[in-house]
């Protein structure tokens, strides 16, 4: 972890994720770090990025210092191009208008399946988590970027419950389940950027953040993880950090 004097690990996640987004894309963003990252990308290198929020918002510009508590309040609609019913904004995913979905996760496995429903046995869980929201829809219907802290308890061999499908059992199992489109694209953690093998669909390390070693990633991952021509990411810039801090002055999402 490279939580330095000048940034928190949430800020690192937001910045590293933002860099993956490209101008002109249509991004379905969850609240928290995804919302911040998308907003950051919009202000820095992707002015034509179109953000969609689950509450029914298309193409907004969130106002600095007025972050919404979820993707379903009026703060999400600032300078939006369109407001539409929830079902219809989610149907944009099914119809194929969205390039990438972007959300956080509580638990992920080596095939990129996400769990945000139950820790432990689903019929008698240790912890009942809040559930899917649009997570299942987004991950079922488009390409996904997931951003989360890199911890052994979060990076598991097999999730306790598949809330949001990644590549299911790997290989072609996702398409066979009835999900021919989309799938996991990147996982951005506070240690590394991870991708997925195009054939086996297993998670692989693609880049390490400055100062992080591959062993550190492996120590914080409870399954075997391969590396794939590893690069090193650039440190967060002052510009990135200052824009983030402008948007979240109270550190609601970047504490």
């Amino acid at each position, binding site marked *: 972890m490279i939580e330095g004097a000048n940034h928190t690990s949430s800020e690192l996640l937001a910045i590293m994720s933002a860099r993956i987004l490209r101008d002109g894309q249509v991004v379905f963003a969850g609240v928290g770090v995804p919302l911040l990252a998308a907003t950051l990308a919009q202000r820095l290198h992707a002015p034509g990025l179109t953000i969609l929020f689950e509450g029914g918002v298309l193409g907004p510009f969130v106002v600095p210092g007025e972050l919404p508590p979820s993707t379903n309040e009026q703060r999400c609609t600032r300078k939006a191009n369109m*407001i539409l019913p929830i079902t219809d904004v989610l149907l944009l995913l099914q119809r194929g208008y969205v390039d990438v979905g972007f959300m956080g996760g509580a638990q992920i496995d080596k095939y990129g399946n996400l769990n945000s429903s139950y820790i432990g046995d689903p019929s*008698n869980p240790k912890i009942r988590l809040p559930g899917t929201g649009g997570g299942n829809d987004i991950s079922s219907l488009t390409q996904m970027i997931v951003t989360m802290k890199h911890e052994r308890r979060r990076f598991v061999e097999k999730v306790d419950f598949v809330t949001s499908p990644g590549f299911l059992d790997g290989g072609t199992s996702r398409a066979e389940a009835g999900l021919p489109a989309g799938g996991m694209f990147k996982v951005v953690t506070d240690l590394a950027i991870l991708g997925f093998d195009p054939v086996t669909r297993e998670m692989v390390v693609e880049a390490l953040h400055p100062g992080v070693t591959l062993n550190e990633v492996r120590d914080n991952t409870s399954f075997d993880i391969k590396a794939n021509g590893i690069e090193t990411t650039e440190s967060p810039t002052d510009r990135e950090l200052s824009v983030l801090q402008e948007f979240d002055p109270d550190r609601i999402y970047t504490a």
Partner: protein
Amino acid sequence: MGHASTLPKTYQKLRDETAVRDRSLREKVMTLEEAASFVSDGEHVAIGGCTMSRTPIAMLWALIRSGRRKLTVSRSIVSTEGDLLYASGVSDHIITSWFSQGIVWGISQVMRHFTENHVAKFEEWSHMSMGLRYRAGAMGIPFMPTRSMLGSGVRDVVTESVKEMICPYTDDKLLLLPALNPDTALIHVQRADKYGNAQLDGLQFMDLDIAMAAKRVILTTERIISNDQIRRTPDQTKIPFLTVDAVVEAPFGAAPHECYGNYEPFFSHLGAYAEATRRDPVAGVEEYLNRYYREPKNWADYLSLLGVTELLDASRRGRSIVND
């Protein structure tokens, strides 16, 4: 007393239930208490809005005070109102896609307490699936085909309620989501006339489909406006009077949640609630119910407890969406 079935009715039953409703243009303004009496124990009640937006808090407040039991409750996304429905005993079965106060406050300890101890059920569907189930109900069809939920655990835990099929046109695998036709829908809007024509500003959520799908609709509104005003801008009407059975004027009817263009969430009130229920879920929510739900003499009394300073602050922030 059993729970409401949330699986599709036969077309004949759906039609028969609708045929006997009084769908004429008639005045239907009443009090919160009168409207609450429309709901019977064991029914399926759908709640409009989403998370902290346009939650029909005033109507839920009246339902909790009326002592309803064993409602099955469905909603797009459930926030603090879910805690209160569980803890008051009004509902022991909530069908939704996400249930917690809101991400910034962490996980709901009240939801955890009731579900992990098997006191109440949290039936989880994907967000779009909730929407498509209401939409199928609104359209008078028994199911909606979709591509979502396939392959996931979310699909597996509701396996008794869903069907799969191979598309006869394309050979694709499809999930058939069962229509959801609630017994009663509770919807809060910015303005409606005495007949129940409702005009919604900003975020619509799933409210249009819920209103069309339900067997009975109770509208609460920030303000009752004239039918003349409705007829001047008919393309702004989102819910037609013929689906509506009760209209209640309830200013700040979504407080401490938000009502688009009128007021934002009451953040410090909600923060205090989160803090209290984090310390002790059972005692925290019980104390909250006593103080805000059981003890006030009436809705104005409830609003007084929220505090004029908070009401003004939430309004100031709320109106900024149209007057910045």
